């Protein structure tokens, strides 16, 4: 399997970045909702937020790698109507901006008092912007709104992928799973369908 993307499909690097971020981010969303309701004497009261903050840093790292990778790797050709392509392109940009904003607001919540954020037991990131009136409340509430927005976008994203797969019978989903348009896929079983309508 090729490391880099080509016009037919995503390469290994893009797929790993996509799926690892998908799993981590959805996991962090569930963990986030779960941990804010833990009571003080829960065994997870300390460990869950520690893990959440640390994984948030990992997401930031993966996002930087991903944006860098996008600069150097060509993208597979998009299928669909013109407006669909334009919408998809902007949706992806919105995804990246949201992830960045979510990570930043999370960081600003933890470091609001000027104390560092700890990434596992590896190292700590110092606070930069701190001491704004009610910073932890504002950043925290924004973090929540943004993550809820993000998950709605994920649902639309998944629905669109499934629509491409089951209704349009194209390779939009498969090419993120390591399959190419030229490899034997169910497209060949539907010769009447055009890949780009």
């Amino acid at each position, binding site marked *: 399997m090729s490391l880099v993307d080509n016009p037919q499909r995503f390469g290994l690097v893009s797929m790993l970045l996509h799926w690892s971020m998908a799993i981590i981010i959805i996991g962090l969303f569930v963990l986030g909702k779960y941990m804010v309701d833990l009571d*003080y*004497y*829960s*065994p*997870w*009261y*300390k*460990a869950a937020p520690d893990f959440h903050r640390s994984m948030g840093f990992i997401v930031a790292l993966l996002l930087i790698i991903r944006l860098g990778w996008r600069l150097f790797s060509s993208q597979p050709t998009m299928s669909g109507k013109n407006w669909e392509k334009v919408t998809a392109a902007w949706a992806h940009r919105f995804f990246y901006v949201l992830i960045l904003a979510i990570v930043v607001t999370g960081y600003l919540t933890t470091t609001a*008092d*000027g*104390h560092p954020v*700890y990434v596992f037991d590896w190292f700590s990131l110092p606070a930069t912007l701190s001491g704004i009136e009610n910073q932890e409340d504002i950043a925290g509430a924004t973090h929540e709104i943004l993550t809820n927005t993000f998950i709605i976008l994920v649902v639309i994203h998944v629905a669109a992928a499934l629509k491409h797969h089951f209704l349009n019978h194209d390779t939009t989903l498969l090419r993120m799973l390591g399959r190419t348009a030229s490899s034997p896929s169910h497209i060949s079983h539907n010769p009447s369908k055009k890949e780009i309508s």
Partner: protein
Amino acid sequence: MKKNLLLSLLLLLSLTSLNTQASEQYTIDTRGMHAFITFKVKHLGYSWLQGRFNKFSGDFSYDANTPSKNKVNLTIDIGSIDSNHAERDKHLKSERFFDAKKFPKATFVSTGWKDLGDNKATLSGKFTLRGITKNIDIDVNQIGAGKDPWGGYRRGFEGTTTLHLSDYKMKEGNILGAVAENIEIWLSIEGVRK
């Protein structure tokens, strides 16, 4: 018979050597911030002004069997002084008082621990502020120790001492006068066992 004696002697020796290693190592919980370093000083002689240092770090060792071996290390970030008034903090950090640029850290290194029973002790050590080192005694009171709900083990103390402003040769220390000579320190230190 002789062999047995030798064996039991060896066993006894190893047991005593185990005993000497019974000191527990703790990190002061500044990550979860269950530690506080506060000071209070009279304002004009009419009221107390209270403040604290928000950033510091340290560790201690605790030996229940031989308390005299207890050790404490503390480093305080002078720039983190917080008296709940930005311009006063700026003033205090300036070269007129703490001179935080030139002396960014204050340190305490223990030299002795005298157990007084009933969870009380006197902790002696070298305290360095503005590059000036003084021997100070801290009255210590152990508050408690035990397991926490998250899989750790904690031990906590409070400490009080009085520092003397004139000892640290602050440029404008004298201007504050005799009413500000005594600075009351109250520390609350919770350690998480390493």
